[in-house]
């Protein structure tokens, strides 16, 4: 009796599992999108819910339902680890430049069929043939950003502003924030000393480390997204971060804090671009999605939500969007539009070999331990 009961119980559990796993009917297409967190317009603050809008548009256009499974990751490396485990399948991913180069080299990306992405015409010449994808085979740029220095003008003397030196200025000891991530932190020293950020020569990295060590007594703390609260509240006065994020901080700054921003002469550029990984189950649908993301309404909604610059001319030439941002913001965000290709190729982080990456990690540890 007991045996029968336990067999029945196990059977019921297995059935429940199967029923749950087999959810979703056959008539509905599924599209798995894997993107950075908070990196798409999601309907908050009265904005467009891009994913819902795509589902609705697709049904109207093709007469078939599509369900977008939208999930997020926190870093390129997280995304890479998940995909290379071979345990998941995504149709659209949005990695950064160096990661695209690496994944393309490892055959993890599919060549795009641009017949399905006619809106690619709105990506201007200066955003094509970028170093990570010189033949425009695998990627369609989504957003880009440039690192600049943010400072509180209520504390910092205007005379001290300029280039990376401000972040090494002893006058502001204990009020300076540095990146809490080796590549970005070393780069500030390398740009300051006019060294190559992609060098494989250990001596270059040693030199950067020495520079960071002279800075470390002045540093209040090494931070990533904690920088928002520390700058907004006036707790710290100087820090480097992305131009788009500066405007987010500006919106939330406390009374008596006067945040300002400038680009040092040499600084970091990055691009995040839409790609189709080789585990994709429905390439055509993925390409239609990418194409939709390039069309005017969703592209503008995303640019307004993310606050990074868009490489899409439908966005940065749209008068309403430009007016909404205001002249000053446009000047900061879009200063590098015309010769973007040159800047990126010169100042972006390239994918480094394992030996150099290992060496950087070791140096970083000696800096943090002191």
């Amino acid at each position, binding site marked *: 009796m007991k045996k029968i009961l336990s067999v029945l119980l196990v059977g019921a559990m297995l059935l429940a599992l199967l029923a749950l796993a087999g959810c979703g009917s056959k008539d509905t297409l599924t599209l798995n999108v894997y993107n950075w967190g908070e*990196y798409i317009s999601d309907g908050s*603050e009265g904005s467009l819910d891009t994913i819902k809008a795509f589902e609705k548009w697709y049904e109207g256009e093709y007469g078939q339902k599509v369900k977008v*499974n939208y999930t997020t990751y926190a870093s390129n490396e997280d995304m890479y680890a998940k995909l290379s485990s071979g345990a998941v399948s995504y149709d659209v991913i949005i990695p950064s430049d160096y990661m695209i180069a690496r994944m393309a080299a490892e055959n993890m990306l599919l060549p795009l069929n641009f017949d399905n992405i006619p809106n690619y015409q709105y990506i201007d010449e200066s955003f094509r043939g970028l170093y990570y994808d010189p033949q425009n085979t695998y990627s369609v740029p989504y957003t880009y950003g440039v690192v600049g220095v943010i400072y509180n003008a209520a504390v910092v003397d205007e005379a001290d502003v300029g280039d990376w030196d401000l972040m090494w200025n002893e006058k502001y000891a204990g009020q300076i924030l540095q990146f809490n991530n080796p590549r970005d932190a070393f780069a500030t020293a390398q740009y300051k000393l006019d060294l190559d950020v992609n060098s494989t020569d250990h001596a270059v990295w040693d030199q950067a480390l020495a520079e960071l060590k002279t800075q470390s007594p002045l540093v209040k703390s090494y931070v990533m997204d904690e920088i928002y609260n520390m700058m907004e*509240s006036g707790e710290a006065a100087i820090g480097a971060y992305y131009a788009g994020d500066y405007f987010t901080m500006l*919106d*939330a700054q406390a009374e008596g804090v006067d945040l300002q921003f400038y680009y040092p002469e040499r600084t970091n550029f990055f691009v995040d671009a839409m790609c189709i990984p080789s*585990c994709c189950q429905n390439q055509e649908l993925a390409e239609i999605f990418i194409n939709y993301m390039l069309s005017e309404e969703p592209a503008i909604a995303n640019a307004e939500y993310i606050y990074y610059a868009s490489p899409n001319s439908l966005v940065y030439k749209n008068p309403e969007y430009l007016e909404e941002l205001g002249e000053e913001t446009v000047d900061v965000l879009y200063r590098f539009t015309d010769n973007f290709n040159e800047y990126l190729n010169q100042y972006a982080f390239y994918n480094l070999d394992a030996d150099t990456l290992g060496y950087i990690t070791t140096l970083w540890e000696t800096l943090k331990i002191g």
Partner: protein
Amino acid sequence: MKTASKIYTGLVMLFLFAPIAILLVFSFNGAKSLSVFSGFSLHWYEELFRDSETLGAVKNTLILAVSAALISTVMGTAAAVGIHRLRNRYLRLALDTATNIPMINPDIITGISLMLMFVFVGRLFGAATSLNFGTMLIAHVTFCLPYVILQVLPKLQQMDQALPEAAMDLGCTPLRAFLKVEIPEIFPGVLTGLIMAFTLSLDDFVISYFTSGNGFQTLPIRIYNMTKKTVTPKMYALATIIFFVILAMLLLSNLLDANTAQTVKEAKEKKKARK
């Protein structure tokens, strides 16, 4: 001495509850900032209920936690009964130790090894994707199970072993004796196990992170992934709501406990009076 102990208690309370209090206050902030409070507003609550991704993640988390808790409670209770009835002492000890391994194993090792196993089995059967809701559920049941067993086993040992025997002597079938006599005796343990499994599953991050597939994202993973930009105050609102729901549940269960304790006490007094 008395003031010192009061100060000490105060400090402990402060460190325990200040973070929750801050989160609570800033969930009602009109602005996006964590440093400036610019007036009371329900803005972030409105935003939260408009955010379909986050609500979806909450739904996923709840579905997963409820099913993992139910399955691991049934399995765990059955396992505890089985272990309890083993005659061979060494076998019992060995099984007891084996079930405790997932509990003392660091989460990260459990997570990685489960992921590897799912991928391996998936490849074996030629599946394109091996991680999905099912694998996450198996993973959650795996780490909840020992906690349920740990709650139920002591209750079985405390129980008067003659009780089920007496029931069977009086004509109960073994199944009936189990359902009518043993289950009510161990029920508090089963319930505690269920609640523990539910909360463990609810806030697990590490194991979920490794075993989640495409399309099924739980709340802890979603919040972690917000760190490229910054965590929005919507999350403070969500955390506040979760805090109050759990507080209400806690109060309710304490109230029920007090009630049953009261009726038991009354019943005992009546019995005494009759004597």
